[in-house]
């Protein structure tokens, strides 16, 4: 059998241009500064920008790789024989994007041809864009100061996921999918492993030159059960925490063990009675609460939204700038951080796409809104003198703008456990995993489903219920927070596909938390 060791280096070593990428992004032992060839390309870009009278310029040269492996088990139409359907893909992308400020306006251009000539041509295009826009620019841009860095950074990892043989990965997902399907009542199952790398070089006219490697590792196993007579179909998913890490994280996912659990739970979900709607206490697990934090707090504390930059698409925010430092969002227990340094967080990195070093800062302290997420061209608009390092673009062909850092909720007191939360509930629901989600354009009114729901009666967890969603208002909800489990329960879930901006871009972000209890939330019964 062919050795499938298509390592990251071998992969990016293909082709002439790709051979260039291999050289550019190679990581020789002990190197602390970027590859000299990258620095040469960066310097060429900045020289051209200066020649064309740009007051600021930066370039990002990026190589992505994404490996996606999945196996689905389902009955064949007509025979009922179980088929194993695989998808194996492994692709990449390599290109650059340049930003300039000319006559006080931004210009941006991008191309997949990484040569000095094309970089110079695209600097010219970006300058043309900026000049055209300057005609309707009313105020010149202002950038917060940033220190100069010349460095390398990479996601801490022990095992390059792309160096692990495909056979090992396929064996794992085939085993996990088969474990789910061992339960006769399961109609179909599937399991996924996915790995993404982002080799990125950044150079700016400030003088910074930064080379980084960001690595992401994902997995998932899913079960679907169908009752044809009753016309009901339910699923149950195990979504391990999605992380920035190497392959060393995969064994920690325990995909097979969790496959055994969800095959039982999907049948219980299929047969679970519908919830009785009404005001109930909620105990929300980290696998669920991350998304509520993301939508209600993560997005509402983005400065670009609060100022109106997103008004035409994602929306604005109920947290207008006059409320910074004073508005009570939640109960005293609520302490929320913006943090691009947290271990394994999806938004964790060394430096942002403005060249600002990753930071950690308080967003909510004891329930009071304290700080926004900011980038260099917006900090001064709220009287701040430095960026909080939240600039990101999802592709070399995308314009960097303000994106969410990891936004996480501090755990409760040591020793507070999940049972303490449940025992204090007379009539409530425990929710695990995320489901449907929707929130208005100012982040007031939201509705969340979940992946699995258990009734809590008289302080005890009961059997599963189905068709659950809760609706609330952000400040009402967070002010009803009355207990959080301790640090040993703190976990970090997230998503790689947070959408924002026009043209729309995605962002990877994590939201750590411990299980938490919310009082008297409006629970509805869905279809």
């Amino acid at each position, binding site marked *: 059998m062919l050795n499938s060791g298509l390592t990251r280096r071998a992969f990016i070593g293909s*082709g002439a241009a790709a051979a260039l990428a291999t050289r550019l992004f190679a990581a020789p032992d002990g190197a602390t500064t970027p590859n000299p060839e990258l620095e040469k390309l960066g310097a060429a870009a900045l020289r051209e920008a200066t020649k064309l009278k740009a007051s600021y310029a930066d370039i990002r040269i990026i190589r992505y790789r994404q490996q996606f492996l999945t196996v689905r088990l389902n009955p064949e139409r007509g025979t009922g024989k179980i088929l194993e359907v*695989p998808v194996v893909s492994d692709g990449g992308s390599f290109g650059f994007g340049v930003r300039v400020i000319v006559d006080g*306006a931004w210009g941006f251009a991008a191309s997949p041809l990484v040569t000095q000539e094309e970089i110079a041509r695209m600097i010219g295009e970006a300058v043309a864009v900026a000049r055209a826009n300057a005609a309707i620019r009313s105020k010149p841009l202002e950038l917060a100061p940033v220190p100069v860095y010349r460095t390398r950074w990479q996601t801490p990892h022990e095992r390059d996921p792309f160096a692990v043989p495909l056979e090992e990965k396929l064996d794992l997902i085939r085993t996990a999918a088969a474990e789910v399907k061992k339960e006769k009542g399961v109609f179909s199952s599937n399991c996924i492993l996915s790995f993404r790398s982002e080799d990125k070089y950044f150079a700016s006219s400030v003088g910074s030159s930064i080379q980084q490697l960001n690595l992401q590792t994902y997995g998932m196993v899913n079960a679907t059960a169908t009752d044809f007579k009753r016309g009901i179909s339910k699923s149950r998913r195990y979504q391990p925490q999605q992380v920035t890490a190497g392959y060393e994280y995969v064994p920690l996912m325990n995909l097979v063990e969790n496959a055994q659990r969800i095959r039982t739970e999907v049948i219980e979900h299929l047969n679970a009675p519908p919830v009785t709607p009404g005001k109930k206490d909620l105990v929300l697990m980290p696998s669920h609460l991350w998304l509520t934090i993301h939508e209600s707090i993560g997005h509402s504390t983005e400065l670009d939204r609060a100022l109106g930059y*997103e*008004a035409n*698409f994602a929306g604005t925010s109920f947290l207008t700038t006059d409320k910074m430092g004073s508005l009570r969002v939640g109960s005293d227990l609520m302490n929320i951080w913006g943090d691009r340094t947290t271990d394994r967080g999806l938004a964790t990195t060394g430096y942002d796409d403005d060249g600002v070093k990753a930071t950690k800062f308080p967003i909510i302290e004891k329930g009071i809104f304290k700080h926004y997420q900011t980038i260099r061209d917006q900090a001064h608009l709220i009287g701040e003198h430095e960026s909080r390092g939240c600039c990101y673009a999802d592709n070399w062909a995308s314009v960097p*703008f303000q994106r969410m850092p990891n936004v996480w909720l501090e755990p409760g007191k040591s020793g507070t456990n999940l049972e303490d939360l449940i025992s204090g509930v007379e009539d409530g629901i425990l929710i695990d995993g995320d489901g449907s989600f929707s929130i208005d354009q100012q982040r007031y009114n939201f509705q969340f489903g979940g992946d699995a729901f258990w009734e809590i009666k008289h302080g005890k967890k009961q059997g599963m219920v189905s068709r659950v969603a809760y609706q609330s208002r952000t400040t009402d909800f967070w002010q009803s927070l009355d207990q959080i489990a301790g640090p040993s329960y703190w976990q970090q879930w997230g998503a790689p596909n947070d959408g924002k*901006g026009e043209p729309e871009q995605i962002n990877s972000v994590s939201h750590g938390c411990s299980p938490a209890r919310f009082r008297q939330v409006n629970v509805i019964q869905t279809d």
Partner: protein
Amino acid sequence: MLTKEQAQKIIAKALSFSTFPECDISLNSSERAFIRFALNDVTTSGFTVEQSLSISSVRDGQSGSTRVDEFDDDALREAVKRSEQLAMIAPPNPERVPPLEKQKYPDFENYAASTAGARNQAMIPHIRAIIDGAKANKLVAAGFFERSAETAAVANKQGNFGYGRATDAGLSATLRNAAGTSSGWASQPAVLIETIDGAAVAKTAIDKCLRWKEPRRLDPGKYTVILEPTATGDLVQMMGFGMQARAAEEGRSFLSKPGGGTMAGEKLFPEFVTLRSDPFNRLYSSLPWGGGGGFGFGGGGGGGGLPAEPITWIENGVVKNLFYDRYWAAKAGKQPTPFPNRLVLEGGGKSLDQLIAGVDRGLLVTRFWYIRVVNPRSMQVTGLTRDGVFLIEQGKLSAPVMNFRFNQSPVEMLKNTVAMGTPIRVRGGEGQGMIAPAMVVKDFSFTSISDAV
């Protein structure tokens, strides 16, 4: 962007490196120019060039896929080799379909050179019209103007080859008052950039914003609603995903019949409901393929790449066709169908004013936002109204109303539709949009109030 000859050359080169019996290729190149504005000022703006080549190699049922955006000989050779290496490791795919034979693609193109060549100078006068309109009314404008052009090719080792070009443009604007207590929105998608009218977009959005002042709080509940065309499109476009024969047969769709089977052939909707896919409608700019699977691209697996063609999904209220990809069609003994996109919901002939005049008490909805599926089986979705809700009393708009959250299936909504206006092309905040009319719907389910503006 790549010409047909350039595409042919790159594909021929890639195929020359193939050592497997099957090799599917899909090649794309695109250019995009865009301007974003907010706070009555331009914010970000760019010009981007992208290209990519997807390769899927198959031997003995084993399939591997890769993607590159470098097209020199070495890169192509290595990419083909990589897809073959992946295939050798992948387990055989029992749902694989045979490669397409040579296809005859329709000789259809709706490519606008004016759109493909437009840069910021062509877009700025329209943005200026919006910003000037905002300032004249003491409002604050935000919005987005984008034009895109693409060329694409599909090919395989069996000699199939197709090439197509498409262009599109769109301008949208949100006008808010300085206090942030009122908001209006308008949008115009168009294949021909010269038909986009910034002043008209501004007028509609400004008018909405000025009228939607101090909205009243109404109780949530079931209301007769008039959905403006964008609001109709926001919800009906989601039905495309619900038309899959496989999901229906496997009990996962609103078209699943209790006990087994599908609702094909059954009359589920009023007589006047007809939903079609029409890639040749001049309001769209489509590539000449789109049938047979996946999302219309040629690469393996889904078995796509069949010629584009119009198809009717719901005809006079009857479920006429379901979506069959090539694999499921072969299993079911059916012909594969185009994917349900480029949707057109046929309408009646009434103007929006006439529809309003026919409603005694109801709500006029400008558009919806953050729509997500709650139950895929019933297609129940949740979301919110946005940028203008108005009470209708005795055939007239009587008062602005606060936004609502809804929980509603577009399937039930179409069943409860009582009248329709003239269809136009629309694109809301999410999804690709469609060609949709305004419509009057009974018993639309609003479940809570939103404070959002």
